[in-house]
């Protein structure tokens, strides 16, 4: 038998049909659904009289639109169009009989945090969602990627996707991370090295000591942003940490089924002599805490650096860099640590889990945020929020001057009321710094939770290592 990558193995285990021309039907084990990209898909089912083929494998949760303020049970906190979308999901979940975590449920949260937390995401599965950050679930050695609404409808109706196999890309992070450097810095540094199209057409598998040393939560942060590197999905082979995370979760297998599952999971790794179409190697020792300066996630630099000049680039990136600098209100040569910040946002499916909150709280403990700073923490789920309260983290944030919010996507994409005003500058732990992403005219610098906490205290982008 020819050697296979992990991606090859998961692909082969889910092939429901292969046409002569190589077009494949890939069986989908878990379909996650949220309110923004699903209404048209359910409408399509109604119009054609189709049912959801596997409602027991379909899990829905509203997250993008939901307010994160404590008064959100009051319908007036949502705009009418947001409310219509959330109500549409309520109704679709009920009508089609799929699993559902409504806004009022303590388990509600960002779909990519809820899936793993509830044990829906398991190694070797295929997981899709009408959301590009579905890549997150790859941390479990699950083949997970975002799809469009037409594909959501296709999966609802057939539990399969029409796919062609992607190529295999190996990203290895050798050695161990230095203090103050986190999973977020790994994933941003990889994108900085490969560019936002570097992974297009590939599924990335992450390797190396630094990846093995990450917790499951850190691995989710790494895989979450595989899409920002253009890759369809990111994967990390399961190991003891993966099994320990999954064990005992509400929807994880139990007893004999657990043993059978685990036996299969242990076969899920890339064979030593598997073929890679592309290989990228980065030394963990070379990764510093990073921030983005521009409006593409590839615009990454170590915090010790300075804003580049458009002339540092070639081709179409010259114009794009100039446009970024104009939009961001920055000039070439400016030190990154001199950039003043108005707002700090800690949350999102990239870094809205308990360890992210612990990392930020460790920096904030006993300190106050800068006068006039607007800072908010939006836990990734109601359960993360509850745990943070139990651990005393919430109080640290509140004492420091942060707003302590309810769970949702919030200011990562600003579909709810949490938005930047034009010209406002935000240090954000989320995943995208695109123009207008956090609000029209808003300026976003992506960084890790600890770096965000440091910026909240000093009022400017800050090397967190100086505060440790």
């Amino acid at each position, binding site marked *: 038998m020819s050697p296979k990558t992990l991606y090859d193995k998961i692909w082969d285990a889910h092939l429901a049909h292969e046409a002569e021309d190589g077009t494949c039907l890939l069986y989908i084990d878990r379909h996650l659904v949220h309110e923004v*990209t699903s209404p048209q898909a359910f409408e399509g089912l109604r119009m054609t009289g189709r049912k959801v083929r596997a409602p027991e494998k379909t899990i829905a949760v509203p997250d993008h639109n939901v307010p994160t303020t404590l008064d959100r049970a009051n319908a007036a906190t949502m705009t009418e169009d947001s409310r219509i979308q959330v109500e549409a999901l309520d109704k679709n979940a009920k009508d089609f009989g799929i699993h559902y975590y409504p806004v009022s449920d303590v388990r509600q949260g960002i779909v990519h945090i809820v899936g793993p937390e509830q044990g829906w995401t398991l190694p070797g599965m295929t997981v899709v969602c009408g959301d590009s950050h579905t890549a997150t679930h790859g941390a479990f050695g699950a083949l997970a990627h975002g799809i469009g609404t*037409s594909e959501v409808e296709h999966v609802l109706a057939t539990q399969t996707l029409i796919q062609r196999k992607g190529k295999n890309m190996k990203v290895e992070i050798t050695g161990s991370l230095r203090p103050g450097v986190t999973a977020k810095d790994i994933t941003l540094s990889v994108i900085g090295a490969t560019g936002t199209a570097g992974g297009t057409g590939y599924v990335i598998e992450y390797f190396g000591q630094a990846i093995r040393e990450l917790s499951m939560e850190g691995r989710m942060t790494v895989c979450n942003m595989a899409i920002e590197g253009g890759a369809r999905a990111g994967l990390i082979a399961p190991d003891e940490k993966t099994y320990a995370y999954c064990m005992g979760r509400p929807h994880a297998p139990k007893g004999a089924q657990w043993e059978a599952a685990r036996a299969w999971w242990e076969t899920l790794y890339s064979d030593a002599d598997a073929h890679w179409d592309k290989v990228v190697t980065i030394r963990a020792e070379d990764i510093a805490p990073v921030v983005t300066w521009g409006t593409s996630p590839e615009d990454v630099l170590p915090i010790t650096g300075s804003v580049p000049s458009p002339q540092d680039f070639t081709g179409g990136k010259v114009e794009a860099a100039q446009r970024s600098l104009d939009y961001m209100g920055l000039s070439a040569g400016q030190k990154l640590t001199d950039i003043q910040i108005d707002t700090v946002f800690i949350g999102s499916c990239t870094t809205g889990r308990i360890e992210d909150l612990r990392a930020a709280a460790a920096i904030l403990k006993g300190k106050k945020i800068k006068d006039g700073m607007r800072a908010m923490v939006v836990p990734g789920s109601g359960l993360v929020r509850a745990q943070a309260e139990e651990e005393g983290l919430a109080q640290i944030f509140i004492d420091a001057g942060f707003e302590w919010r309810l769970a949702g996507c919030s200011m990562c994409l600003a*579909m709810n009321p949490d938005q930047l005003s034009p010209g406002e500058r935000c240090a954000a732990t989320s995943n995208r710094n695109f*123009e207008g*992403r956090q609000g029209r005219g808003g300026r976003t610098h992506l960084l890790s939770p600890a770096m965000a906490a440091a910026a909240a205290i000093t009022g400017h982008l800050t090397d967190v290592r100086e505060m440790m």
Partner: protein
Amino acid sequence: MDKFTKITGIAAPMPLVNIDTDMIIPKQFLKTIKRSGLGVNLFDEMRYNSDGSERADFVLNQPAYRESQIIVAGDNFGCGSSREHAPWALLDFGIRAVISTSFADIFYNNCFKNGILPIVLPKEAVEVLMDDARKGANARMTIDLESQTVTSSDGQVFAFEVDGFKKHCLLNGLDDIGLTMEKAASIDSFEKRLSAERPWV
């Protein structure tokens, strides 16, 4: 879905690289439960001032390009969010094809589900077509899906690759859910095997 066979139309040049789906359709317009009506908000924040007036410097606001059916774009068009609202907005505006050196995967797939043809060509070809697009409304290019060619206004022909199945669906305006449902027996037998081999799924 509308068929795509052959179009001859105006192409708008958008040489900026990494045009993301947040630019194509900002999130405030994702709060719809319909597929239609998004064309007026296509490229909203690049196209309009904050008071709602048009920005004269934006290509689709210029008289020559208001009726564009094609966009010639910089590298990595459609990156970012999976929102299918991006192709819905393009289609609603009247765009039927986008030409670039590369597209983000999810956007690329979404186009085919909506009767839009994304065309990947080498850098040199895209540069020629970008220059052709800059000539304005009198320079119409022709895209023929059957023969898989783009012909510039001065008759230069560029051949492109497209997946056979996607081409078939686009040429005939086919609903691929219907096609997949014809393979229900394969899905049934896969599910039987799955529940025996991996019952925890």
